[in-house]
């Protein structure tokens, strides 16, 4: 029997027999069912994935009529990451008119809301110029990044230093104050960018600092939505599971620690998010088929329940895309096709 070519979650090449492939797909689903408490994939969906990985085409794509929107975070930062020192307005025009991006996002290299406040006037001027020179919907994006609010970089005591000393109450109080401060910062930037004409604000990598990070993002979303009913708000998550760094943080009566994408969506949608970006992290020690089956099983219930567009995160280290700076197109295109066709996504 001929071997099927695929890759490990770190991108390294891998050959499997069909029975090994099927076993990995089923194991990935079983992991999702156990951890995220989601329904398993059907036998037809497993067969779809088997057939997909058996195809010998280097690149695959969705069926005609199933095309989706391709949105991009941190566009200007990614040009800089390649040591291309191009003006940010030109970076956005390159994304739009050379790379074919459907959405654009202006950002600063720090990519966090807190450090933007002192330089907001410069960011606004760049946004205004970029909007005049481009055509696609334009976000301003950054991360809530509550990690920047702790001493010595920020004003509040570090809960990670307080907790080992048994100062749990003090640690949680510090998180509460960090949330309040982050909400002020996010709303300040969002309002400034609205004034400059941006189509939307992107809260990216939400939950990277756990439940306080998610809480700040939900509160900021509610406040922005109340003030600007027509403003676009995109929320992209940091991981599949909200870490309980505080542990007792609630929103609308729901405990935030431990939430998976479907429950994250419910809160984001209610808060007023326009586009939600769920994440499933790639396990580098498992195969891409294992990761993809697990990712689809977790994202599918989220997408099925959504009333707003779902743009799942598909990139290095998330969405079954291997953890490598150079994601191979064979597995990226297979993962993208399966995610769109089985999860019925609105964008990637």
């Amino acid at each position, binding site marked *: 029997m001929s071997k099927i070519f695929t890759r490990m979650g770190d991108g390294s090449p891998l050959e499997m027999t069909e029975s090994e492939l099927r076993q990995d797909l089923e194991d990935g689903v079983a992991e999702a069912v156990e951890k995220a408490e989601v329904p398993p994939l059907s036998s037809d969906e497993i067969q779809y994935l088997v057939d997909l990985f058996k195809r010998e085409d280097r690149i695959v794509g969705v069926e005609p009529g199933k095309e989706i*929107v391709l*949105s991009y975070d941190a566009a200007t930062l990614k040009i800089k990451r390649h040591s291309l020192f191009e003006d940010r307005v030109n970076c956005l025009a390159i994304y739009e008119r050379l790379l074919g991006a459907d959405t654009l996002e202006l950002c600063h290299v720090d990519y966090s809301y807190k450090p933007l406040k002192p330089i907001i006037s410069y960011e606004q001027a760049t946004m205004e110029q970029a909007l005049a020179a481009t055509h696609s*919907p334009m976000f301003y994006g950054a991360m809530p990044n509550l990690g920047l609010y702790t001493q010595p970089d920020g004003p509040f005591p570090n809960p990670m230093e307080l907790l080992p000393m048994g100062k749990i109450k003090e640690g949680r109080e510090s998180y509460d104050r960090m949330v309040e401060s982050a909400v002020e910062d996010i709303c300040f930037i969002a309002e400034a960018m609205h004034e400059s004409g941006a189509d*939307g604000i992107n809260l990216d990598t939400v939950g990277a600092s756990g439940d306080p990070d998610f809480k700040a993002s939900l509160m900021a979303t509610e406040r922005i939505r109340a003030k600007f009913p027509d403003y676009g708000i995109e929320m992209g998550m940091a991981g599949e599971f909200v870490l309980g760094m505080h542990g007792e943080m609630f929103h609308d009566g729901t405990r935030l620690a431990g939430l998976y994408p479907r429950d994250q969506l419910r809160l984001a949608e209610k808060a007023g998010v326009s586009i939600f970006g769920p994440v499933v992290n790639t396990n580098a020690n498992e195969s891409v088929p294992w990761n993809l089956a697990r990712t689809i099983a977790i994202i599918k219930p989220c997408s099925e329940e959504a009333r707003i567009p779902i743009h799942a995160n598909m990139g290095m280290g998330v969405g079954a895309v291997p953890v490598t700076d150079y994601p191979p197109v064979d597995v990226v295109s297979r993962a993208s096709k399966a995610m769109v066709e089985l999860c019925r996504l609105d964008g990637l």
Partner: protein
Amino acid sequence: MRSAGDLVARVQLSKKLRIGEAKKYVADKLRVGVKELSDPVIMSEVRADLGFGIMMPLGGTPKGLECKFNIARVLDLDINCLNRFKRMAGL
């Protein structure tokens, strides 16, 4: 801009429509079929005719804000930066 992804994305963002509804909205407004939205040859002609902006906007073609005025009018959307432009220009 190779086809209509930016237009569908704009409708998703401003009206919170899911992909099928957003595509139908754009296709109806442009009077094209949904399947034609992803065809770069057909859509380049549609975009050029409507002044929506194309990948190679040579001299004499609308660009940037000029295109956004056309997009807002044809798709019946409110585009934030156009409101700012009118405010700043005293229009």
